[in-house]
């Protein structure tokens, strides 16, 4: 099996993202795919996208993995860390070895405990505003070159466009409204995960996988399925659940199947 070259993976990523922007798409699903692509493109350990809410708190809206440990690592950067610095300054940050910096002692300890040595944070920019960050974690202290940094920023820019363009943006031209919708969609997904986890005795990561699977299989938007579950409008049939099919892909696996 041939592994795709970096360039071809990159061009396919951008084509896929562009297609999604033209068609109707689900924002959280798109940002999740974008995070997974980052992991693939840079052989990273993990990636995630955070948006600031009305109070300026950075909230995870999508990540390459739903593992609680990783999500905590994003979240605790509200106190200290590359995401916070990136968000405040609007400048990208790239640290290839956390052991070589003293800036974020608490964050560094947590990141290392989770198995990460390198980190990057790229601003989601809209003219003068920074609305969030794209965060990448690397297991090994590998330096991201100039071209890599440019690609990361381009992916962050795509995320920004997606957030502004998504689906039922319709009349909500107001930026606050759009960001609120993105955050609400994520919350609805967390609520839906809880419902599925309880009803069918699933781990949260499995619950998310089943949610995505059901949405794709029934040709509905992930956010719509989540909302429908929360509002009691639909019930999932456990006989449709796959087993172990949709565990979050590790770096290098193919996303082409769109399954």
């Amino acid at each position: 099996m041939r592994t795709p070259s970096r360039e071809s993976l990159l061009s396919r990523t951008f084509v896929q993202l562009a297609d999604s922007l033209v068609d109707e798409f689900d924002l959280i699903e798109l940002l999740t795919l974008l995070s997974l692509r980052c992991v693939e493109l840079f052989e990273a350990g993990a990636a995630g996208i955070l948006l600031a809410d009305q109070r300026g708190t950075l909230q995870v809206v999508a990540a390459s993995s739903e593992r609680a440990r990783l999500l905590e690592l994003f979240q605790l950067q509200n106190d200290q860390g590359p995401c916070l610095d990136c968000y405040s300054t609007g400048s990208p940050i790239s640290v290839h070895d956390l052991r070589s910096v003293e800036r974020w002692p608490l964050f560094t300890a947590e990141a290392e405990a989770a198995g990460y040595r390198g980190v990057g944070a790229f601003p989601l920019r809209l003219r003068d505003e920074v609305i969030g960050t794209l965060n990448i974690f690397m297991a090994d202290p590998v330096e991201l070159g100039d071209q890599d940094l440019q690609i990361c920023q381009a992916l962050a820019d795509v995320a920004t466009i997606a957030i502004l363009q998504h689906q039922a943006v319709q009349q909500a031209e107001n930026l606050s409204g759009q960001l609120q919708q993105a955050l609400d969609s994520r919350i609805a997904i967390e609520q839906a995960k809880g419902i599925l986890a309880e009803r069918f005795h699933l781990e949260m990561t499995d619950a998310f996988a089943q949610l995505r699977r059901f949405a794709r299989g029934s040709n509905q938007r992930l956010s719509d399925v989540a909302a429908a579950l929360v509002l009691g409008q639909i019930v999932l049939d456990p006989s449709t659940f796959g087993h172990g099919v949709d565990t979050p892909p590790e770096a290098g696996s193919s996303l082409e199947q769109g399954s």
Partner: protein
Amino acid sequence: MAQALSTASASADLDETFCTCCRDLLGVDGVSISLASSFDLASMCTTNASISAFEELEFTLGEGPALDALASGEPSPPEHPPGEMSEKRPPFDAAAADSGLGGVFAFPLNVGAARLGVLTLFVNSITGLSAAQHDDALIAADALVHVILAAQGSTPASAEPVPFRDVGLFRAEIHQASGMLSAQIGCTVADALVQLRGRAYAVEKPIAELARDVVLGRTRLLRGADNQIEWSGEE
């Protein structure tokens, strides 16, 4: 503004006075706050009688801007000429004209997909809401979510014994826990969140920590004898 709303709600009932306070803070001509139950709305408070009448008409007819906002989970568009509205809903034309209303703008009060209610703003002029008013309304809506959760759970609006950030826990667990609790006792996710907040306050635990206990299965909700809701397990 969020602070002002919290303070106002703490010292008063959620009634006409409170609505008037919202109206003044938002710089509009009238405000109504309604609460959701299933897919219906019930008026909680308004700033004056003609708005109450307008709302009653909407809820009786089963359609209108507040009900749209409740169903869609999205706010009314900011530029919302009353003419357009009356084209779609003739009965509102007369009611709106009687009340001297120029525009009606509804903002859903949500936590994710869970519906708590609707904040409706009324302006007398024909102009829509300004971008600033729209932004302020979103902030007010967010603050009102906390006010309503507090009122329903009989806890203070700012009832976080310890700010969640100090505990260093991921807040998604609060929403996951709400989902789990709702499935455990068959209530809405909104009600589950009220339960979670109430319990956290009662046992003096940060809500994020209690949420984590729920997610890890350490504590859960049950329906006991007489359909009473009980918490079980260790905290």
